[in-house]
């Protein structure tokens, strides 16, 4: 019946509309997988101060993270693909966090939730806290706030959704290499900045 409606001579646009009416869509596997990935993050049940309280609030009925499909908080890193670094990263916590990150299956993403995870926050110059989660992990999205409201958390996750939809994970090795290169560049930029600061 659908085929009868299509005359074959018209533009793709019209054909697509006709097919869409019959719930038939064309896409490629890459887009299909990304569509699924971006709409069902499984965050790791991790947090280390007051930011996780907002994360818990976002999971409950008032804010309801399940509206977006991100509600499956996993207690085991092997089942999770999103690490929400909620709260400051201390030097004592680093091995634990690195181990959790290594245990998560790929593709996986990091969200820095709150000022402490973004930049170290008020503890930036402290003797035991890293200046941001990006010191040790490749952070995808930064959500500032002290702590961020659940709405801000959702906004960050939706930004991550956009990022995931645009990424080509079929060339995963290249993507990973690029990410590592970006990290190296970051380090070089940071070194340069530090030198400048010393000079000043």
């Amino acid at each position, binding site marked *: 019946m659908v085929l009868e409606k299509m005359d074959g001579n018209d533009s793709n646009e019209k054909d697509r509309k006709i097919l869409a009416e019959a719930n038939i869509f064309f896409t490629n596997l890459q887009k299909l997988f990304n569509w699924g990935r971006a709409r069902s993050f499984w965050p790791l049940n991790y947090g280390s101060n007051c930011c996780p309280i907002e994360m818990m609030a976002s999971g409950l009925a008032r804010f309801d993270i399940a509206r977006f499909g991100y509600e499956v908080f996993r207690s085991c890193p092997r089942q999770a693909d999103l690490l929400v670094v909620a709260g400051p990263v201390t*030097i004592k916590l680093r091995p634990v966090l690195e181990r959790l990150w290594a245990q998560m299956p790929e593709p996986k993403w990091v969200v820095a939730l709150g000022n402490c995870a973004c930049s170290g926050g008020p503890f930036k110059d402290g003797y*035991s806290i890293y200046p941001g989660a990006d010191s040790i992990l490749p952070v995808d999205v930064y959500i500032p706030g002290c702590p961020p409201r659940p709405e801000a958390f959702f906004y960050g996750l939706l930004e991550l959704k956009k990022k995931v939809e645009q990424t080509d994970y079929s060339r995963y090795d290249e993507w990973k290499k690029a990410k590592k290169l970006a990290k190296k560049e970051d380090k070089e930029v940071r070194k340069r900045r530090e030198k400048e600061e010393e000079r000043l």
Partner: protein
Amino acid sequence: MNPLIQTLQEAFPEKVEAVEVSNYPTVKIAAADLVAIMQYLKDEQNFDYLANLCSIDYPEEDAFEIVYFLHSLKEREKRIQVKVRTAHNRPEVPSITAVYPGANWQEREEYDLMGITFTDHPNLVRVLLPDNFEGHPLRKDFKGVNVKP
């Protein structure tokens, strides 16, 4: 003069110095007498609860001061503050874990952050910071470290 401090001074003549602190009976003692006086306070004066243990850095006076806050759960509103001083270059105080077992982790914290050695402590290792951390961050001469990845 607080009657409690008077009794203490009678029990340990010339070893207990009263300090004027408003609303809190306070005594200053030597580190050598610490354990004996703590034992006396616990056994004879019903101070069965060590509420807190803290230390203060006095670089100008070349000293660390360790302060013990004792409360009595048996007698209401009975409390005392015991202060002990130790040298800045070699801070050493006898441990009171034998008298108050609750002092164990508190003394470890003082060792961790202020660098005060408590002799005869059962397990004097760092409690908050990682074991390979250098220095004692709550000391006034602590320069701070750059936490770098």
